[in-house]
C-alpha cells in the first residue's frame, strides 16, 4: 500500500503542476527556435507553418485588396498623371542619351531581368519589416535578390522556399543599402531606425544636402543595381558633436500598400548568385 502510494505520488505531482511543466516546455521550445533561427529543423518547421498560413491567406487576400481598392485607385490615377509627365521628359532625355552614347561609342547597358510577384502575407502585429511573396526557388528566386516596385526599392529576398519567399523590407533595422544623392553624388548608407524612420547615414557635415533631394542606390553595392529610387530627403540637421549630418528620408514606396512587386533576377548583364 505504501509502495503504491510512493509510486503514484510523482505522477500526482506532475499532474497537479502540469501547467508549470507545460509552460517550461513551451518556453524551452520557443527559446530553442529563437536561438537557432537558421537551423534546417527550424527552417522545416517554418516551411510547414508558412505553407499553410500563406496558402490560406492567398485564398482570402482579395478581401484586403477589395477594401484598399478605392485608395489604390486614387493613388494610381495620381501616379499615372505624374508618370506621363515624367515619361515625356525622359523620352527626350533617352533620345539625347542615345545620341551621346553613339558619339562616345559606349556599350548599351543590358536590360534587367524581372520576375513579377504578388504579396501574400504581411506581418500584422507591428511595423511590417517583411512580407511573403508568391515566388520561390522554383521561379529562380535566390536570397539577396533586389525587390522593387515602379516607385523604387522595396528590399531584398531574405529566405526562399520552393514556392514562396520572404522579402526583407527597407523598414527592417537590419537592412542596409549603399546609396547616394542623385544630384551631387554624395554617398551614404540608408538604414531604418525606430526613432527617425528611414535615414541616410555617414554623410559628412561638409556635404551639401537639401530637402527634396532624391536618394538612389549607389554603384558601389554588390547586391543592388545603381540608380534605384529609395526616397526623398525630408529633413537635414547637424549635431556639433558629430562628424556626420542627420538626413531623414521619405521612402518612395508606400509600404502599407504593397501588392505587386518585381524581383530583379539579373542586372547589368550579371546573373544574381
Amino acid at each position, binding site marked *: 500500500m505504501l509502495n503504491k502510494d510512493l509510486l503514484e505520488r510523482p505522477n500526482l505531482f506532475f499532474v497537479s503542476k502540469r501547467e508549470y511543466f*507545460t509552460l517550461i516546455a*513551451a518556453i524551452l521550445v520557443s527559446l530553442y527556435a529563437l536561438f537557432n533561427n537558421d537551423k534546417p529543423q527550424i527552417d522545416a518547421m517554418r516551411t510547414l507553418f*508558412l505553407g499553410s498560413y500563406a496558402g*490560406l491567406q492567398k485564398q*482570402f487576400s482579395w*478581401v*484586403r485588396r477589395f477594401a484598399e481598392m478605392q485608395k489604390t485607385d486614387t493613388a494610381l490615377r495620381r501616379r499615372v498623371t505624374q508618370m506621363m509627365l515624367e515619361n515625356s521628359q525622359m523620352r527626350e532625355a533617352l533620345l539625347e542619351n542615345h545620341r551621346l552614347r553613339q558619339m562616345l561609342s559606349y556599350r548599351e547597358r543590358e536590360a534587367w531581368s524581372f520576375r513579377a510577384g504578388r504579396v501574400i502575407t504581411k506581418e*500584422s502585429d507591428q511595423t511590417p519589416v517583411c512580407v511573403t511573396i508568391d515566388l520561390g526557388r522554383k521561379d529562380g528566386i535566390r536570397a539577396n535578390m533586389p525587390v522593387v516596385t515602379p516607385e523604387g526599392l522595396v528590399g531584398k529576398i531574405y529566405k526562399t522556399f520552393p514556392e514562396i519567399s520572404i522579402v526583407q523590407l527597407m523598414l527592417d533595422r537590419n537592412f542596409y543599402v549603399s546609396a547616394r544623392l542623385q544630384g551631387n553624388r554624395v554617398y551614404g548608407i540608408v538604414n531604418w*531606425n525606430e526613432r527617425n524612420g528611414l535615414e541616410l547615414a555617414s554623410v559628412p557635415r561638409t556635404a551639401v544636402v537639401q530637402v527634396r533631394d532624391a536618394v538612389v542606390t549607389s554603384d558601389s553595392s554588390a547586391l543592388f543595381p545603381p540608380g534605384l529610387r529609395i526616397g526623398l530627403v525630408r529633413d537635414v540637421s547637424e549635431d556639433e558633436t558629430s562628424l556626420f549630418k542627420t538626413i531623414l528620408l521619405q521612402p518612395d514606396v508606400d509600404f502599407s500598400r504593397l501588392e505587386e512587386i518585381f524581383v530583379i533576377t539579373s542586372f547589368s548583364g550579371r546573373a544574381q548568385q
Partner: protein
Amino acid sequence: MIRFVKYALMFVFLILLQTTLIPLLSIQDIYPDLLLIGVVITGIRHGATPAILAGCVVGFVQDAAVTQLYGLSSLAKSVAGFVAGYFSREKLKYNFQVTLGVVAATALTNTVLYQAIYYFSSNISVGWIILRHIIPHFIYTVIIGMMVNAIWPGGLWGKS
C-alpha cells in the same frame, strides 16, 4: 477531439481575420492582436495548459513569415496563455471588471515580453518603446477584446 477541432477552426478563422481585416484597422502601424484574444478564450474556458499550448503553436504560425527572432511570438503567447489560464483556476465570477482584468493582464504580458525582447539589442530608449509600442498595442488589443465581449456576452467565459 471535437473540442480540439473546434478550437483549431477558431484559430484558423482568427488568423484569417488577423491577416485580412486587421491590417485595415491599423493606426500608425499599431494592430490589435486577435490571436491573443483566442488564447485568452482558451485560457479562461479550459485553464492554463491548453492556453499555453495554443499560444505556443499560434505564435509559431504567426512568426512563420518574419525575418528574425522566429519563436518570439510563441514565447510571448505561451506566457500570456499561462496568465489567462491562471485566472480560470481562481474560479472568478464572470463580470465586466474581471473580463477586463484578464484581457488586460494577458495583453500586457504578451506585449511587454514581445517588445522587450524585440528591441533588446537596439539602442532605442525604454520610454520610447513603452510609449510607441507597448501601451498602444496593449490598449488596442484590450479594446478589441472588450468589444468581442460586448458583442458576444459571456463568450470569453463560455457562459451566457
